[in-house]
């Protein structure tokens, strides 16, 4: 998996972020986790609309916020996150900053 090639920049590494993101997104979209790949596009491949992405962001903030105090995602950045890979990279960077 490409995620394994990423270098962890904080206390929670990319593999863990990817696992959490997949799990939460699968719950929100009510789809099998296997459908969610790193190169999946949120809209084209997974049919996730803006409200679903906001649900995902809230879920990530809640879960990761418990482990990394102050973790949050900027709403303004949401529009730039088109694929799962981009979201994982973004979250890892935020966790490490």
């Amino acid at each position, binding site marked *: 998996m490409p995620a394994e090639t990423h270098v962890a920049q904080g206390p929670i590494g990319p593999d863990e972020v990817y696992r959490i993101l997949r799990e939460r997104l699968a719950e929100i979209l*009510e789809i099998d986790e296997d459908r969610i790949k790193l190169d999946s596009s949120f809209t084209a491949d997974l049919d996730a609309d*803006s*409200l679903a992405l*906001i*649900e995902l*962001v*809230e879920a990530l903030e809640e879960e990761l916020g418990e482990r990394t105090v102050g973790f949050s995602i900027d*709403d303004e950045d949401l529009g730039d996150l088109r694929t799962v890979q981009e979201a994982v990279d973004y979250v890892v960077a935020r966790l490490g900053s």
Partner: protein
Amino acid sequence: MGTQRITVAVDAMGGDKAPGEIVRGALDAVAQLGVDVLLVGQEDAIAPLLPDGRAPGIDIEHAGEVVAMDEDPAAAARRKKDSSLVRCAQAVREGRAQAMVGAGNTGATMAAALLRMGRVRGISRPAIAVPIPVPAGTRHQLLIDGGSTVDCTPEWLAQFARMGREYARTRLAVDEPTVGLLSNGEEPGKGDELRKRTFSLLEKVPGFHGNVEGRDLMHGTVDVVVTDGFTGNVVLKTLEGALRAAVELVFGVLDSTPEAKEAGKVVAPLLLDAAAVFDPDMTGGAVLLGVDGVCVISHGSSSARAIVNAVRVAQECVETGVVGRLKEAIDAG
């Protein structure tokens, strides 16, 4: 729920007449319905409206922020975590209240309920089930969606139909509710692409009657009328405007000649009594279906009486286990 008193969280800052009418409605609800109310909002605005700053059956939960009527719903629900609206939904999530009532920004109420309470499994988007009076009938119709989800897919409309049917069972006491798809003609091929694709999905929903038209509203052709939130909201506002115009027309006639004025002395009180069924304050509020908790949305210009009736709807939904029954029905397919 046994004999335990139900607590309803009320957004004291939501609505055109907040907080005055909302707080007055909360006081009346406690007195009339035997519920407790958690008034959520700015304490310095709420407390002066209560006798001696407090009242039996009422608790105040301070929330520093307010979601305005014109704010972006999702952004407000996400970022204003200290708002009265989000805190109401949080109170339900944490079990400090069993239901919430809000008369503020409808979209933000939906988003706050969705984000804080979560969704019912099997439901992609929530929908507002609005009871529509049927003057010649014995029970209301339900219009779903009244404005929660503006852009819909056929699958979501099919989910609305299933939710509306179950809600009609519980709230309208109809054993086998009939369902109609709002379109621009009764024939199966009528409508835009969304309606046509939805029609074929609804054929698998028990009780599906087929397409219905705007004129079937308020006439009880079917128990549940399904449409997207955009159309549903336009329909509701159209009905409201048309009814107001009809009332103005009738009272204009009754004021037009001396003979009509004499007749009006007899007829006008009867008409006013009959027209009470159309008063949105009497309905109180509409339930947001598809979220994992009871959320009642009242109209923006809610009076104290509307709040009492909205709290009553919330209370009845808790007592009849609306959310649990909905989950079971959706799970059962």
